[in-house]
C-alpha cells in the first residue's frame, strides 16, 4: 500500500460519488434510459451512470505517481464501492419514503419509481441493488486498472468503445439515412439500440482498424507529409476540392432531417466565427452577442415582411441592409464599452443584449416589431437565371447551400483577417492592451472593427435565420443563445477556426440529434465551460500560439499571489 493515502482516496471517492448521484437526481439517467444502446437491456442512461464512475476512477489513478496493480485494485474497489453505496442508499431511501408525507419526490421530482426501475435494472429491490453495487465496483475497477494496460491495446480499445457508443447513440439517424438499405440496418439494430451481434461486430472491426492505423498509420502520414513538401499546391487543391465536393453532396446523402440539423449547426458556425473574432482574436468577452443576431433578423423581417408591408423588399435586397444594420449596431454598442475591460465589458454587453430583448418585447415598439407575437411572412430567397429558371429557397437542403456559402465566406474572411495586420493588432490587444497601445495600435478603430466584423457575421446569420424560419419572435433571442455561442468557441478553442467548426458540431449538433439531451444542455455546457477552463483552457482544437500564452502565464506564476499592481486583473477601466 505504498504511496496510497487512504484519506485522499476516500475524499476522492466521496467527491466522485456525487456525479452519478447528481446524474440520477437531475433526471438524466432516467431520460436517457429510454434510449437503448444494446437492445433494451443496456440503455444509454446506464452507460452514462457507470461511465461517470469509470472516468472518475481513471482520473484518480492517472494522478498516482507510482501505479501498481494492487493499489489500483484497491482504489478501484473503493471509488466504485462508495459510488455504489450512495446509489443503493438512494434506491432504498426513495423506496422507503414513497408512501409517507416525507416523499423524496416532493423535493427531488426526479427521485421517482421510474428512476428506481432504471437503477435496479427492473429486477426488484434486493437483486437490483446488489447488481447496481456490483456494476459500480466493476466500473471503478476498470477505471483504475485501465491506465496499467499498455497503450498499444488501450488506444484501440478506447476507440472501439467510443465508436460503438456514438453509432449506438445516433442509431435513429443512421437508420433513416437514404444510403443504407433496410437489410443492413436490420442486421445491426434492434427496435431500440444495437443487436448484440451488431454491437460486437462494430466494436471488433473498429478495434482492428484502429490497431492497423496504429501500426501503419505513421507511414501514411509520412508519405502525405513528403507529398505536401514536394507539391504543396497540388495537395492543397486536392484536399479542398475533395472537401468541397463532399460538402456539396452532403444533403443528398443525409436527407432532409439531417440537413435541418446541418442548417442549425451552420448558423451557429457563422455566429461562432463572428464571436471568435471578438472574443478569440481581440479578447473582448461579449455576452450580448445575440443582440446582433436579433438585429440582423429583425431588419430582414421588417424590410421584407408582407405582414407589415412597410418596404416589401426581396431577400437579396434586404440582406446587405441587414448586415449593415448589424454593423451599425456593433459600432454604436461598441463605442460606450471601448474603455472597459474583461469583466465589466462582459456584464455591460450582457446588459445591452437584455435591453434589446426587453425593448423588442415591450408594447412600446410593438407597432414596428410585433411585440411578443413577432413578425411573420418574411421573404424567402429567390434565385432567377436564364437556365435554372426561378428557384425559391425554402427547404432545409436548399438553405444548406445558402448557409454553406455564408460559412465559407466567413471562414475565408476569418482566415485572411487572422494573418493580416488588423488580425495581429487584435491579438496584440488580447495579450496586453497597454502594450498594444504603446506599440502604436489605435485602440478605438481596432476594437470597433472587431465589434463590427463580429456583428456583421452575426447579422448575416440572423438574416438567413429569419428567412429560413419565415417568422420572427423575440424568444429566439434570449441570453442563452449568446452563451451557446460562447461555450462552443470555448470548447472548440478560443481563437481557433477549426475549433469553432468542431465546437459547433459537438455542442449544437448533439442536442438536435439526441432530443433527451436538449433538456440538459445548459447544465452540460455550464459544466463544460468550467471543466475546460480548469483543465484545458485552450480548447479541444487550439490555436498554437494561444496554447503557449495560456500555458505560459500559468507556469510563470508559481506562487498564486500576484500583487495587485502586477496583475492586470486589478485594472478596471483605463483612467
Amino acid at each position, binding site marked *: 500500500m505504498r504511496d496510497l493515502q487512504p484519506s485522499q482516496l476516500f475524499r476522492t471517492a466521496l467527491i466522485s460519488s456525487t456525479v452519478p448521484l447528481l446524474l440520477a437526481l437531475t433526471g438524466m439517467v432516467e431520460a436517457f434510459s429510454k434510449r437503448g444502446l444494446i437492445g433494451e437491456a443496456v440503455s444509454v442512461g446506464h452507460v452514462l451512470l457507470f461511465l461517470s464512475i469509470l472516468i472518475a476512477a481513471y482520473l484518480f489513478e492517472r494522478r498516482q505517481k507510482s501505479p501498481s496493480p494492487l493499489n489500483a485494485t484497491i482504489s478501484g474497489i473503493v471509488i466504485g464501492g462508495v459510488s455504489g453505496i450512495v446509489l443503493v442508499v438512494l434506491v432504498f431511501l426513495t423506496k422507503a419514503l414513497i408512501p409517507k408525507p416525507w416523499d423524496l419526490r416532493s423535493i427531488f421530482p426526479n427521485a421517482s419509481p421510474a428512476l428506481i426501475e432504471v437503477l435496479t435494472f427492473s429486477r426488484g429491490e434486493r437483486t437490483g441493488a446488489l447488481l447496481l453495487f456490483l456494476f459500480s465496483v466493476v466500473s471503478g475497477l476498470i477505471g483504475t486498472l485501465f491506465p496499467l494496460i499498455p497503450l498499444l491495446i488501450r488506444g484501440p480499445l478506447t476507440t472501439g468503445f467510443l465508436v460503438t457508443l456514438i453509432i449506438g447513440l445516433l442509431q435513429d439517424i443512421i437508420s433513416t439515412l437514404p444510403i443504407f438499405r433496410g437489410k443492413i440496418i436490420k442486421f445491426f439494430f434492434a427496435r431500440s439500440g444495437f443487436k448484440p451481434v451488431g454491437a460486437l461486430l462494430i466494436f471488433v472491426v473498429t478495434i482492428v482498424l484502429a490497431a492497423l492505423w496504429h501500426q501503419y498509420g505513421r507511414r501514411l502520414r509520412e508519405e502525405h507529409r513528403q507529398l505536401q513538401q514536394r507539391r504543396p499546391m497540388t495537395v492543397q487543391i486536392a484536399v479542398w476540392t475533395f472537401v468541397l465536393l463532399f460538402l456539396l453532396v452532403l444533403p443528398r446523402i443525409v436527407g432532409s432531417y439531417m440537413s435541418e440539423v446541418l442548417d442549425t449547426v451552420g448558423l451557429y458556425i457563422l455566429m461562432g466565427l463572428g464571436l471568435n473574432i471578438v472574443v478569440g482574436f481581440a479578447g473582448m468577452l461579449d455576452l450580448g452577442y445575440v443582440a446582433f443576431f436579433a438585429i440582423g433578423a429583425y431588419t430582414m423581417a421588417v424590410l421584407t415582411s408582407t405582414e407589415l408591408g412597410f418596404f416589401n423588399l426581396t431577400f437579396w435586397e434586404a440582406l446587405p441592409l441587414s448586415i449593415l444594420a448589424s454593423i451599425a449596431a456593433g459600432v454604436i454598442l461598441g463605442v*460606450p464599452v471601448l474603455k472597459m475591460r474583461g469583466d465589466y465589458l462582459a456584464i455591460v454587453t450582457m446588459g*445591452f443584449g*437584455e435591453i434589446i430583448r*426587453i425593448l423588442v418585447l415591450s408594447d*412600446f415598439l410593438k407597432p414596428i416589431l410585433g411585440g411578443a407575437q413577432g413578425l411573420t411572412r418574411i421573404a424567402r430567397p429567390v434565385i432567377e437565371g436564364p437556365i435554372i429558371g426561378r428557384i425559391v429557397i425554402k427547404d432545409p437542403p436548399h438553405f444548406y447551400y445558402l448557409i454553406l456559402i455564408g460559412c465559407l465566406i466567413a471562414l475565408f474572411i476569418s482566415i485572411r483577417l487572422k494573418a493580416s495586420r488588423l488580425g495581429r493588432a487584435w491579438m496584440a490587444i488580447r495579450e496586453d492592451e497597454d502594450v498594444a497601445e504603446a506599440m502604436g495600435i489605435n485602440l478605438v478603430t481596432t476594437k470597433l472593427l472587431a465589434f463590427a466584423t463580429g456583428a456583421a457575421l452575426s447579422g448575416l446569420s440572423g438574416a438567413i435565420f429569419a428567412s429560413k424560419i419565415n417568422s420572427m419572435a423575440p424568444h429566439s433571442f434570449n441570453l442563452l443563445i449568446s452563451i451557446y455561442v460562447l*461555450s462552443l468557441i470555448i470548447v472548440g478553442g478560443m481563437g481557433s477556426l477549426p475549433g469553432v467548426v468542431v465546437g459547433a458540431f459537438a455542442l449544437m449538433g448533439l442536442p438536435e440529434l439526441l432530443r433527451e439531451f436538449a433538456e440538459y444542455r445548459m447544465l452540460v455546457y455550464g459544466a463544460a465551460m468550467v471543466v475546460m477552463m*480548469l483543465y484545458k483552457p485552450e480548447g479541444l482544437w487550439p490555436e498554437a500560439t494561444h496554447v503557449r500564452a495560456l500555458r505560459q502565464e500559468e507556469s510563470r506564476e508559481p506562487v498564486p499571489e500576484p500583487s495587485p499592481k502586477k496583475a492586470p486583473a486589478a485594472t478596471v477601466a483605463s483612467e
Partner: protein
Amino acid sequence: MQQRLRMELTGTQIALWLIGGGLLAMVLIGSVRTLAVGKYTSKQWLDFIVFGLAQGGIYALIALGYTMVYGILGMINFAHGEIFMSGPMIGYFFAIRMARSGFVDRQPILSLLIVLAVAMITSTTIAVLLERVAYRPLRGAPRLVPLITAIGASFFLQYLFRGLFGADVKVYPDWDILSGKVPILGVQILKTQLVVIIAAVLLMAGLYTFIQRTKMGKAVRAVAEDRAAAALMGIDVDRTIAVSFALGGLMAGAGGLLYALLFKQVFFLMGFVPGIKAFTAAVLGGIGNVPGAMLGGMFLGIFESIGPNLFLDGLGIPAPYQLKDVIAFTMLVMVLIFRPTGILGERLATKRA
C-alpha cells in the same frame, strides 16, 4: 498620428456625452411632465419609495458579495446571483414542511429564523464550494479564464437546481405576522416591506461591524489592500478569501430569503436579474467599497421603483413597468462610462480604475 488619436478620442467622447445628456434630458422632461399632470398622489409616491427601499435593501445585501469578492480577487463573481437563489430555494422546502405541519402558525418567529438560517447556510456553502472548486485553482490565470469559469458556473448552478428541484415556480407559505400594514409616522406600510428593510439594515450593520472591528475583518481588509503584503504579515490568504466568499454567501442567502418573503416565490432563474442589478448597485457605490454597495443598492432600489412611473410615464411610453429592467441596465452602462469609480469613489476603486 497622435493628433489623429486625440481627435478620434474626443469624437467618441463627444458622442458619449451626447448620449448621456440626451438620457438625462429625457429623464428630466419625463419627470417634469409626470409631476405636472399629477397622476400619482404623494401617498402613492411614498409607497413607491418604501417598496424601493425594501427592494434596494435586498440589492444591497447581494451587492456586498460582489463588492467583497471584487475587492479581494479583482474578479466579478458571475455566479453570485445563483448563490443568492440557492438559499431561498432550499429554505423553501423547510418553510413548506413547517407550514404544513402548523409549526409556522405556532412559532412564527422561530420558524422564520430557521428558514433564514437554512437559506444563509446553503448560500454560504455554495459560495465556499464554488471558490474552492472553481476559482482557487485559477487564481494566477489570465483574466478571461476565471471570468469564463464564473459564467459557466453560473449557468451550471441554475440548471443544476432546475434539474434537481424542478422548473416550476415555488410559492412560499404566508406568515400571518407578516401580513397587513403598520402605521409609522402616519403612513401605512406593509409589514413585509418593513421587516425586509429592518432585516437588511441589521444584517448590513452586522457585516460592517465584523469587517471593521474583528481580527478576521481586518484580515479581509488587509488582503483586499495588498495580497502579497498581507501574506507576509502572516495572514492566511486562502482562508481569508474563503471567509470573504462565505460572508458574501451569508448576505446573499439572507437577501434571498427576504426576496422570497417580499415576492412570495422562488424559482431557478430568480437569481439572474437581481444579480445583475446588485452588480449595478455595487458599481454605483464604487466596487470594492462595502458602504458604497449598501448605498448603491438602496439608491438603485428607489430609482427603479419610482423611475418607470416618474419619467417613462411622462414620456408617453405605454406600459412603462415593462421597461423597469432597462432602467437598471442603462444606469449600469452610464455609470461605467461616466463614473466608473462609483458614487463614493473610494480609494480602493480609484486605485484600480
